[in-house]
């Protein structure tokens, strides 16, 4: 029985995480604990007890658990001490001996006549350790690493993650796919917008047939009508040709702004209305004599008409 228990996952590995562990683990531990209680109860019955206090039961169970745990831990230590990874019977025996247990009495005890048989706890949940998805070829150990060392993890977890898809080489299919995908997205999106907002309908009898998103007047209609949408701007950036222009533009702008700021600080003048930052070629800008770029004068005491 003990050896069987030892074969099951080692308890202390889980104990630390009991609080935070997920519910299946909880269940598992509870079940194990319950089994231990049953074992303790049956041992007590064997010894002639008829009832026990809850606290006494718990204490005994705890003791039992500690004992078994200690046996397992020591057996593992013994085994690892001899450079093995799996404990053998002799490891356990040595452990028991170490713990001051007379091993010779064990077979007799096991074969006692009044022994009660308890069914083993179901090990269903616990054993379902999901098998890790194996992606790609695992690297084998180099010669200087002993083979009993853990294997390398999957390459995608620490080298790179290649995604493999059957490359669709047929142009027609690609276009077809792109077209229908876009159309589906657009349709779904517009339907959603139509469903969630106000709509207008072309048919009196079936309002939902061709729902049109209601036209909403805007306060400044020319802005959305004239400025390119973000999507279009994005497209523009993707098409290489104009990229450079954009870049130089923004460079100019930024240098411009900073220069203007400086000059503003120095002369302590207010920039033209609307916070307009004069634009153009930064260097020329300072030389341009345009009346609209000149600073606004402070009022003088002027002769009244």
């Amino acid at each position, binding site marked *: 029985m003990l050896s069987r228990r030892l074969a099951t996952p080692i308890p202390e590995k889980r104990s630390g995480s009991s609080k935070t562990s997920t519910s299946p683990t909880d269940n598992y531990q509870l079940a194990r604990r319950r089994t231990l209680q049953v074992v303790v109860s049956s041992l007590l019955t064997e010894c002639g007890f008829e009832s026990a206090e809850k606290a006494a039961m718990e204490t005994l169970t705890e003791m039992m658990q500690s004992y078994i745990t200690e046996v397992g831990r020591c057996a593992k230590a013994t085994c690892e001490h001899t450079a093995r990874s799996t404990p053998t019977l002799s490891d356990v025996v040595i452990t028991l001996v170490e713990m001051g247990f007379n091993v010779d009495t064990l077979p007799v005890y096991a074969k006692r006549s009044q022994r009660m048989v308890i069914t083993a706890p179901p090990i269903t949940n616990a054993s379902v350790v999901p098998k890790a998805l194996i992606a790609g070829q695992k690297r084998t150990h180099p010669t200087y690493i002993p083979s009993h060392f853990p294997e390398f993890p999957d390459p995608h977890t620490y080298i790179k993650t290649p995604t493999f898809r059957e490359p669709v080489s047929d142009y027609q299919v690609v276009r077809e796919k792109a077209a229908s995908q876009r159309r589906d997205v657009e349709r779904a*999106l517009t339907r959603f917008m139509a469903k969630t907002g106000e709509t207008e309908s072309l048919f009196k009898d079936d309002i939902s047939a*061709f729902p049109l998103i209601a036209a909403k007047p805007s306060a400044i209609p020319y802005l959305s009508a004239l400025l390119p949408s973000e999507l279009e701007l994005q497209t523009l950036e993707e098409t290489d040709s104009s990229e450079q222009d954009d870049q130089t533009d923004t460079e100019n702008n930024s240098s411009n702004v900073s220069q203007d700021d400086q000059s503003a600080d120095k002369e302590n003048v207010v920039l033209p*209305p609307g916070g307009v930052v004069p634009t153009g070629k930064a260097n020329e800008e300072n030389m341009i004599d345009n009346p609209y770029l000149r600073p606004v004068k402070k009022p003088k005491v002027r002769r009244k008409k």
Partner: protein
Amino acid sequence: MLSYKQNPDPSGLHSRRCMNRKKDKGFEICINNINFQRKSVIGYVELTIFPTVMNLNRIKLNSKQCRIYRVRVNDLEAPFIYNDPTLEVCHHESKQRNLNYFSSAYTAAVSAVDPDAGNGELSIKVPSELWKQGDEMKVMKVYIEFSLDQPKGGLHFVVPDVDGSMAERAAHVFSFGNQNSTRFWFPCVDSYSELCTWKLEFTVDASMVAVSCGDLVETVYTHDMRKKTFHYMLPIPTAAPNISLAVGPFEILVDPYMHEVTHFCLPQLLPLLKQTMSYLHEIFEFYEEILTCRYPYSCFKTVFVDEAYVQVSSYASMSIFSTNLLHSGMIIDQTPVTRRCLAQALAQQFFGCFISRMSWSDEWVLKGISGYIYGLYLKKTFGVNEYRHWIKEELDKIVEYELKMGGVLLHPTFSGGKEKDNPTPHLHFSIRHPHTLSWEYYKMFQCKAHLVMRLIENRISMEFMLQVFNKLLSLASTASSQKYQSHMWSQMLVSTSGFLKSISNVSGKDIGPLIKQWVDQSGVVKFFGSFAFNRKRNVLELEIRQDYTSSGTQKYVGPIKVTVQELDGSFNHTLQIEENSLKHDIPCHSKSRRNKKKKIPLMNGEEVDMDLSAMDADSPLLWIRIDPDMSILRKVEFEQADFMWQYQLRFERDVVAQEEAISALEIFPTPASRLALTDILEQDQCFYKVRIQACFCLAKIANSMMSTWTGPPAMKSLFTRMFCCKSCPNIVKTNNFINFQSYFLQKTMPVAMALLRDVQNLCPKEVLNFILDLIKYNDNRKNKFSDNYYRAELIDALTNSLTPAISINNEVRTVDNLNTDVRLILEEITRFLNMEKLLPSYRNTITVSCLRAIRMLQKNGHIPSDPSLFKSYAQYGHFVDVRIAALEAVIDYTRVDRSSSELQWLLDLVQNDPVHYIRHEILSMLAKNPPFTKAADSLLCNEALVDQLWKLMNSGTCHDWRLRCDAVNLYYTLFGLTRPSCLPLPELGLVLNLKEKKAVLNPTIKSEQGPGGPEVTTTMCTVIFFDFCQFPTQEEEDIDMDTVHDSQAFIYHHLNMLERPSTPGKEPSSVEQAMLSMPGTPMPTLSKESTSSKHGDHHHHHHHHEHKKKKKKHKHKHKHKHKHESKDKDRDSHAFSNSPASGRSIRSPSLSD
């Protein structure tokens, strides 16, 4: 604050000027306060006047809708009278409803305030203390304080309804108007011939910029630092109508190439402005080079504003554009349009702003020259093909208009000013004033003007032409730098005679006949040509006939060029069109000898191989062209065989010839035509607009050839070859619009294909699926340019594919019985329209196309006809193009469904919409697609509608000349010139007027008797409002009766003199009486009008004396009536104007001592 100083024109060149008795030299205008919240403006103007006559005791200025607080002449308070007869053209009690009556009354009203005739709405009496000074010809300074409250014309406030400060809201204001409309926003001499120098001051919020004419001298904070004052100086003598103003939180862009040029746009649009203005310097360079003359002003400003009145308006040293002309670099279609607008604006800076006109009848010279040099710019920038195409387009336009509406007269002369001498009796409006012209007529006028300039160029050569322009400009710029006293400024005004004189001086050529034909006379020439080939004599017998009897035509006598393409080459012949000769014999050069295989030389020297099998074996003629250079304003209907047209299309290199051939081929649906068109379509050296035209022609031919057509639908295989993938021909390539020619072709072909019809007169399934596939596979991800116009045209193609639904028993249209094809179309439209809400396209082109498509679906009975969708898109707050498209649909619905409620809705919009352009467009679209016409009976045509429209043009549109003319136009379309037929016929000849307790001849009958007759000229309704201002309370008690009395009498007299020149002696005017009977205490409102109109009695000149007697008799009754009237007036003015200033004139009597 607006402060403005006008210096009157000193020269006294015209005798007319003497009536004005003044010369203004300097003008100072100062606007102190612009309130965006209240939409109001406060300011003053100061004019410096140099009297040119003795005893200048009366100064007349133009002013509309301004509230005038005080007038001072040389620091002395001066009494003034405000009288604007154009506010209400015909007296509202009149039952007159015929247009002839209105037109002449309107013309008279405009004349009565015409600054060119020395008139004006505002008459200021010069204080008697200054009279002596006047004798000594001393300078006079006239100072006027005024305000504007919610102006309905002249200035337009755009104040978006969002949170934030006015600057954050992008609120702005700008001046606008049709022709001389400056009087709407400050008192001035609103004439193009009255030049003066200007000093302008505008105090605006610190977050705003005020852009105006001339140089910005300085910008100064006010003492509280919350506002800034912009000081402008315009030292170049400029007419008041060329002064403008724009105030807003503009973003400023100094042109990177020309630092004197500054561009302004509304917040957030700066990137677009940069892109749009990146080529302006090229236009500058071009004009300066051809004119060999620097740009006349020291700076130039462009301002882009929302809700613009017109796309382009030019003022001295600045232009105001619609903000919708701005575009990003990804937009193809808008770019050439905007460039054209800029070029137009700049051309007008030279001719129109810098050089102004002597009188209205000289307008054609300015419009002609600016249009002509604009054409030269087009030629240089867009190429000769584009230029010739444009000239043909313009020629076709003017020809079509004149043949339909009657002639367009460039240089009208009015002798004696009598209506009988009306040079254009065929028109329902007078062309005597720019303000009475229909807008369409004026557009055609400009079109004709530049075409005539081109004719002059043909005659005297371009070199001389440009020399003439240069001469005009250099004289003007010399003059502009002179001081006023040198009397040189008239050089800055162009007149027809002066212009012609320069031409003859420079070129030494006599262009008299040309001018007589096209400038002094209206109409175009209509030729019919046919020919026969006389084989024996080897002579081409050409017959050219003319139609000069129908309206809008005139007879042409003179040379005409005919080009004959023969086998041996191309030959020009100049024939003389004479009175009686119709036939012309033209000897041919080549025998028919097509067996010798030889290349055929073309006009341009090129030699080509031709397949001559199609031509007539006996004739060496390939094709014939009449007037190939378009050197006559004409329409030519020429008959030649189909193969000749086909040769012309294939081998003539002139785009005009190709286009003519294409339109001629429409009536020859043969395989040969098909082949010729297809070949042109494929030829990428061919001008793209020709190819586009070929698409539509091919569709027409295919439809006519339906039964014999073989192969796939027209253009399909061509499109596939040009734009689809090689490997999968049903899928279009991903968009790449780098080649504009093929872009335009790619856009157009589906639209033309959708016009194809099969035997059941349906669009072939194959074509529809093809278009749906184009939409489906459209992929713009790799494109440098936006595809919004392309997608919009694909929707247009879907629209074109629609055919009327088969309806059984007029069943109600439901979703269930929707045709499957239509369902597919509707799916696409719904998706496009909805996507547009999430990702709006440039200028919302896609929404516009979708709205048109939906209307077409309704019209064809596929979906229920319903205007509510369009009405929601027509609301204020949508982009203007969308609104126009939606309104067009509503107007179409109104016509088809004869809906009076929709018509009412539209007319309400005309009165209430904040955007002037929308109002104008509604009326012109209604006139183009009228709900009914005078010819047909309609339930819509009823008395209430007549009254409403009458009211609209009579008084409801007094703030906008253009709108009023639009209303007149609509009235004409709906009811014609005479009394509308739906009005009840007056049964009694005599009508008892209970109010006046007297019987008069029923005016409606009278009008029927003599429509448009001279009797109406006397019935100018002079409505004078006296409104005692509230503020100078103390002074009101002591009115200097003598002074006031005199001034009233003078004005009244003056006004009437215009109308009744024959009346001698002093007029015992009713005004005088009114003044005398006026109590000393202030009266709130007292209105008075000339008795003639009040009685509804329209008398001829010789009735005048009788009339006077009558007046006296009823003197006491008038007094009673005043009260009624003033109440009526109030009601009326409320109906049409919310602004107290618009309908009301103010007179502030003040003490001279």
